[in-house]
């Protein structure tokens, strides 16, 4: 069967209504220091996921393992716009966002290994945890189910005049779930500080986007809610950061939600067990030229912000962090079995 492939990179485009189209582009070039942090988080994400896959293949991760290979610029660049008081509701391909928002490598490792000292005490795995101290609230498996919850947090922020912004994500496939619609209906009418990023990574499990929508852009859905919609190149961390910043700023100013479609490619299978034979080789090859981590590396090297020496330093630091976290997690015990019976209710 032929798979219809959409133009992969679209640059920034704006769905109707084209509010504030001008003055947005390249408003802020990140500072050198910011660039390096972006680089670090993207590289850390890439390496963390490699470790996860290794642990999965060794049988040490017993449940599912998801990576966001290809999505690093989106998850890192978007979360990078958030302040401490903002809320992050990441999805399964957004490990980078966790790190940016302050989560430790150890904690995320413990989560993946289901240990008793993980943030969920081993009750749930992967990014399915919450860390209120960092204002990170992970997802449940049901796609789109966290968008209403994020909307409720945005409502609380508005009611309490906190000026906290809530950022959350959904996939191209998940954006078809009813909760996507109900949440945007609510958030738009109430002008809630919600930024919703659709990670259009060409596939939902085995299903290509041609079978998920026929609109020109997924950001076209913004039109129906009377909110701004943007489509961006999700492999370009600059673009991600800048457009998300604008969306976050307007949300913080009380101007309501925005919808951002970030166009990327899911370079790995759906989860660690999936070989993704259904993805045309050619498509992967094309996208490989647009690897977000390579992209920023090249950019920073060319700008001399990154030097080969510094790069090595980063790589070592990250390798050390990962070694430490993996070892720590592997040595940590599972939770005492009997504890499973407790904690259904708060007291």
């Amino acid at each position, binding site marked *: 069967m032929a798979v219809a492939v959409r133009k992969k990179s679209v640059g920034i485009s704006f769905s109707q209504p084209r509010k504030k189209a001008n003055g947005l582009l390249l408003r802020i070039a990140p500072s050198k220091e910011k660039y390096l942090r972006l680089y670090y988080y993207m590289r850390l994400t890439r390496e963390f996921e490699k470790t996860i896959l290794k642990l999965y293949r060794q049988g040490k991760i017993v449940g599912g393992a998801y990576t966001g290979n290809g999505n690093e610029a989106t998850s890192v660049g978007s979360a990078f716009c958030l302040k401490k008081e903002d809320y992050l509701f990441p999805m399964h391909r957004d490990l980078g966002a966790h790190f940016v928002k302050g989560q430790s490598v150890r904690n995320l490792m413990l989560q993946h290994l289901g240990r008793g000292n993980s943030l969920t005490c081993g009750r749930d795995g992967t990014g399915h945890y919450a860390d209120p101290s960092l204002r990170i609230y992970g997802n*449940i498996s049901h796609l789109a189910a966290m968008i209403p919850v994020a909307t409720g947090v945005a409502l609380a922020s508005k*009611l309490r005049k906190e000026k906290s912004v809530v950022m959350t994500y959904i996939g191209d496939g998940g954006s078809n779930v009813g909760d996507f*619609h109900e949440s945007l209906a609510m958030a738009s009418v109430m002008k809630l500080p919600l930024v919703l990023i659709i990670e259009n990574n060409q596939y939902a499990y085995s299903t290509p986007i041609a079978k998920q929508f026929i609109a020109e852009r997924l950001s076209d859905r913004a039109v129906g809610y009377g909110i701004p919609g943007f489509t961006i190149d999700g492999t370009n961390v600059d673009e991600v950061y800048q457009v998300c910043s604008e969306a976050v700023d307007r949300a913080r100013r009380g101007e309501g939600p925005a919808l951002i479609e970030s166009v990327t490619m899911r370079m790995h299978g759906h989860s660690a067990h999936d070989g993704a034979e259904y993805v045309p080789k050619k498509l992967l090859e094309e996208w490989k030229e647009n690897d977000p981590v390579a992209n920023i590396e090249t950019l920073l090297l060319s700008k001399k912000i990154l030097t080969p020496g510094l790069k090595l330093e980063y790589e070592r630091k990250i390798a050390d962090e990962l070694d430490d976290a993996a070892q720590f997690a592997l040595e940590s015990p599972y939770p005492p079995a009997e504890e499973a019976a407790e904690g259904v209710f*708060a007291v």
Partner: protein
Amino acid sequence: MAFLTYIEAISKGMWEEMERDSSVFLLGEDIGEFGGAFKATQGFLQHFGEDRVIDTVLAESAILGASVGAALAGMKPVAEMQFSDFVTCGFNQLVNNAATTHYRWNIPVPMVVRLPSGAGIHGGPFHSRNPEAWFFHQPGLKIVVPSTPYDAKGLIKAAIRDPNPVLYFEHKRLYRHVKGEVPDDDYVVEIGKADVKREGTDISVITYGGTTHQTLEAAELLRQENDMSVEVLDLRSLVPLDKDAILSSVRKTGKVLIVHEDNLTGGIGAEVAALIAEFAFQNLDAPIKRLAALDTPTPYSPTSEEFFLPNKEKIVNALKELARY
């Protein structure tokens, strides 16, 4: 002490809690200027303002999910389903988000969902449900089912103060037909405690919500006409379920009829029967009987609806049969 209808008691309880705790707010369809389809929140908008009495878009999943979110962020949302029937449209938010969050994340989700429920008002298949059993089976949701104005006020206050998601089922038929004394002061009815609404020694009836009243009438009739002494235990809370109260009553009387308005099969009565059959087995002098609505949708025609529902007569007959055993 005031003499209030059931719905007035609910309103009173909400009002007091909103005065008491500024993190409590209401959300739902038509609850603001209109005061709600049943007028439970009439006057609230004017008094508490638009930030605390929120008319939402028509979208149950968003309402329930947003309640989870607001609760996670430390507020205390009280969501109204216009009819309990429509909770099915937001089912996922309740059973997967609201219910499981504390277990998984160790974060409280202090939210209340008000669910006007029940039949007998000619609402037909989609305005008559008693949907408590679905949620009863989902670990992590507290469930209360008041039958009197006193309990209604005490339980809505307890629900709002509870750190967990609480489903508050309010029977529409009781709204204006049931009146009672309701203290003006600040009291709560503890969630998880059943109430012996009538003491008796021959047979226990275990019931809750709408059928509590029909059971009490049946018990009174049987006292007058047959000199039977029927104990009526009103569960009041379904989660937690007051097992001690159930077992004590059965241990005393040795015979038990379980009555509810919801469909029979897989209803709350099944669990109550199973508990008794396991933990009060030796005290039983007769089979455990259940009486509930038929296992069909709620039919619209008044004659059919009457046939479908449990009522005083059917309770009387079931009790007589049990007495003969």
